[in-house]
């Protein structure tokens, strides 16, 4: 059981704001911190890992104090046994796949654990390879195996699937889920991919501007947007063109390019590079099946 209540001043492109989060995480729970980039999710994860220090507050794990601002206690990252999986995987380029896992072993731990993990993750054939020669998906599996080799008490995942193609992503999500259940690992993931959050997490914590704006099961949290009868997507303005009386605005939504019509009034406030919300009433959506994903 993890209890935390922390505050930390953050700087973003929009200016200064305060990360102010109170949270309890149950043993073995898979929880996701969801929200826009720059909302403070990664900072929260780093505070849990001991890679960043909050300005004030406390973090307690199973009664052990990891951080206490008032008592000036901060357990170093080395002693927390919180494995952190980085977005860039942070594999050690000088070590083989096997070497990376062996490096992560706790002093005195059996090398059998490395063999088990290599087998479990299907990395046996790759064990002598250097990380630079691996594909994105393979690197991700090595990073996950390495995180588990350290026998963590807490697994922290920072947008673990963001650099992967769709098929690899789905396969690895299954793998993460399987291993997380197998080891009964308390896991905190940072993500802004709704499908991933839906699939993996038992609880979603939505973070906006450093504060928790909403939390609950994924179905409960993401239903909110639908029940209001609206779709809304965050996008970025790529171009604005004049077309007679109206304006055609080209937007990047997710990884798709969309052209929409805007009135002169709307377009006046927009410029290239602006972040916008694209909203629509859900009265006439078209749903077309494009194939199944095999689990």
């Amino acid at each position, binding site marked *: 059981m993890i209890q935390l209540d922390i505050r930390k001043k953050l700087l973003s492109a929009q200016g200064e704001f305060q990360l102010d989060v109170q949270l309890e995480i149950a043993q073995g729970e898979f929880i996701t911190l969801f929200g826009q980039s720059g909302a403070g999710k990664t900072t929260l994860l780093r505070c849990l890992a001991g890679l960043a220090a909050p300005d004030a507050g406390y973090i307690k794990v199973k009664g052990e104090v990891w951080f206490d601002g008032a008592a000036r206690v901060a357990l170093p990252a080395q*002693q*927390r046994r919180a*494995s952190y999986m*980085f977005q860039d995987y*942070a594999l*050690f*380029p000088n070590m083989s796949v096997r070497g990376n896992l062996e490096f992560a072993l706790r002093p005195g731990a059996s090398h059998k654990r490395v063999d088990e993990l290599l087998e479990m993750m299907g990395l046996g054939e790759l064990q002598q390879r250097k990380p630079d020669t691996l594909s994105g998906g393979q690197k991700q599996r090595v990073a996950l195996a*390495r995180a588990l080799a*350290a026998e963590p008490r807490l697994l922290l995942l920072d947008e673990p699937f963001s650099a992967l193609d769709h098929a690899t992503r789905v396969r690895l999500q299954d793998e993460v889920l399987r291993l997380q259940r197998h080891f009964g690992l308390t896991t905190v993931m940072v993500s802004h991919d709704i499908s991933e959050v839906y699939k993996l997490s038992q609880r979603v914590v939505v973070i906006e501007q450093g504060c928790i704006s909403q939390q609950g099961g994924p179905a409960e949290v993401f239903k909110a947007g639908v029940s209001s009868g609206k779709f809304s997507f965050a996008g970025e303005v790529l171009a604005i063109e004049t077309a007679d009386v109206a304006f055609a605005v080209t937007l990047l939504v997710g990884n798709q390019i969309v052209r929409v019509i805007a009135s002169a009034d709307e377009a006046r406030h927009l410029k290239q590079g602006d972040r916008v919300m694209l909203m629509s009433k859900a009265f006439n959506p078209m749903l077309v099946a494009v194939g199944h994903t095999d689990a």
Partner: protein
Amino acid sequence: MTAEWMGYDWQPLLLTFKLAALTTLILCLIGIPFAWWMAHTRVRFKPVLEALVSMPLVLPPSVLGFYLLLAFSPQGAVGHFIESFIGLKLAFSFAGLVVASVIFSFPFMVHPVQSGFQSLPPSLSEAAYTLGKSRWQTFVRVLLPNIKPSLLAGVVLSFAHTIGEFGVVMMIGGNLPGETKVAAIAIYDEVESLNYAAANFYALVLFSVCFAILLAVYLLNRRMMMRVG
């Protein structure tokens, strides 16, 4: 002690390589940790330190040599202190040359190694920390092995630069055979006494050795690049 071979006195050359090797060794011990510290520190006076470290690149060696001579002089505070407490005479001695060379070649070790450390993503050290590894273990097993080309550049440049030193040695070492008469000084000396054959001999050896070292480094670097790419 003389080291005659093939009709030439090899002593200045041996002394040069002894000085370069010792200087490089000391620079490894203090320059690499210092470069790591410089790569990560956020102290406010870092630009001052960076400027100081780079000074030997732009100053005439005679300026550095002049101040070191004043400092090393047994009449001066520093020289007096070192001589009476450590029993080391620095002015016109081999020990003095080593100290001066370390200062003079400092940027040649620190610059490549510091930029090597800075080019590594911070997540590498952080990953090692979260896996329970100490700073020292991380430094030795993760950081150093991943900046091998920079370390090689630092070692070779320091070594080669120490071989090529003249002005500082001239100022604080003088011309004592077997003690401070390195090859660069010997060349000057031989030319002054119109002994061109001997000057040519020293010059040719220095030229060949420096060329061979630099060529080896570039070849080795190319192999390392090819293995990575």
